[in-house]
């Protein structure tokens, strides 16, 4: 996914139909491991901080990627809501 896709997703109204991947940006240090583990959900911005696709994690593959980054983030900045 390109940065622009992630950005477009962010601009849209969050799909409330299911769980979404979210971030507490005040905890994030821009380590960037998340973008490698969840390329379909996360792109990095110009400073290396994650831009997150806030669509519902409707497909199993996306949910698996989301769960992987939630446990991999060394700052515990990511979580699944809903």
């Amino acid at each position, binding site marked *: 996914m390109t940065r622009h896709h992630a950005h477009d997703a962010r601009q849209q109204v969050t799909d409330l139909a299911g769980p979404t991947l979210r971030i*507490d*940006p*005040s905890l*994030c240090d821009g380590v960037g491991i998340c973008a490698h583990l969840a390329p379909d959900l996360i792109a990095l*911005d*110009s*400073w*290396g*901080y994650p831009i997150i696709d806030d669509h519902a994690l409707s497909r199993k593959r996306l949910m698996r990627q989301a769960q992987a980054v939630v446990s991999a983030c060394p700052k515990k900045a990511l979580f699944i*809501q809903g």
Partner: protein
Amino acid sequence: MSEQDLAVDRSILSGGSAVVSRSDSEQVTGVARMDLASHREAFGRRPSVRVRNASALIDELAEVALTGRGGGHFPAAVKWRSVAAAGPGGIVVVNGAEGEPGSAKDAVLLQTRPHLVLDGLVCAVEAVGASEAIVWLHQGAESTMRSVRSAIAERVAAGEDGVPIRVVLAPDRYVSGEATSIIRTIEGGPTLPRFVSNPAQPWSDGARPILVNNAETMARAGLVALRGAAQYVPTSLLTIVSRGHRSVVEVGAAETFGTVIATHWSDYAAGEPQAVLVGGYGGSWASWSGVRHLRVDAAALKPAGLSIGAGLVGPLPMSACGIEESTRLVNYLAGQSARQCGPCVFGLAAVAQLCDDLTAGALTSAGRKRLTRFMDEIAGRGACRHPDGAIRMITSALHVFSADVAKHRRGRTCNAKVYGVMPLPGEHS
């Protein structure tokens, strides 16, 4: 009594307008302070908001469509209901920290109408079933602090309230006025904004529910409690920035920006402004032709993409440059980042640098593209709304002052003869 007299009688500032200096809000002139006796004479006794009719007051706040006057304009009734629903024993905070640097309306309110604000505060405590009342102020705001402390002492001496009111002082910083900074401090943390995943519950899980409302919002809640929704007049408190001072005025929803600025902007005699900064330093620029006919009313502003925000009205004289001014403001805003979120810390600094380049006539085509991309990337990505406001202001500046952008891009000098129109903390003028 004429209709106008009635409107004045029901207003907050009794038809007066206050004047404060550009650099601080320590000396308020033009509106006399109402002590407890004069406040009670004008407004009567504060009605008790017992559990039985607590929801009635909240319904009245919904009826008058009261929204948060700190800038966010979130419906007050929704906030009060969610705190009430969280159970008894909570805390109510009136936020008088006036995070918006150009704004002086909350200082004027707390220095001239402290009992209206405190009536709202105590009514809120009763309405949401809280057990503690706090007034949150900047530590440097000495006149405001003195006024609030003496108002509390008057109320204690008169045996007015069933709940003690405590003053808590915040560091003198832009983000200290953020509601989540206040909640975090009360919960024992640092005075910094916090990410909130559920807007209906900004307090921590298992912690006491906390209601935070801006001083003007609380004064308006007090007005509704004292006079009833039927008597409530939906006015706005505005801070109008002139070169020599700031004016705080109360304006009805039928008045236009054109008449308000012609009446209260002391530089108007030298000519109409070219544009107006509306809402706050994180608000939007609007061209004079685009804003002069608009009414000072949320519904009238919304289609124009504007919000009354924290009530700041900053007219820009023809002799100033909107790009120079906006660059100065975005540098200030970038410096006020709480330094917690990457997109705010690095993004705002990068945007400010590119605006410096633009002002200096050194912005390349690649730089112009980067500026657009950076602003796109930053929007919506902080724990608080601080970066969004800065981006909103710069976006509107590039649009409204497009002719000045073109001049600066070509390395030509703009026609600016006047600099530093909007006041910044720490400056003396």
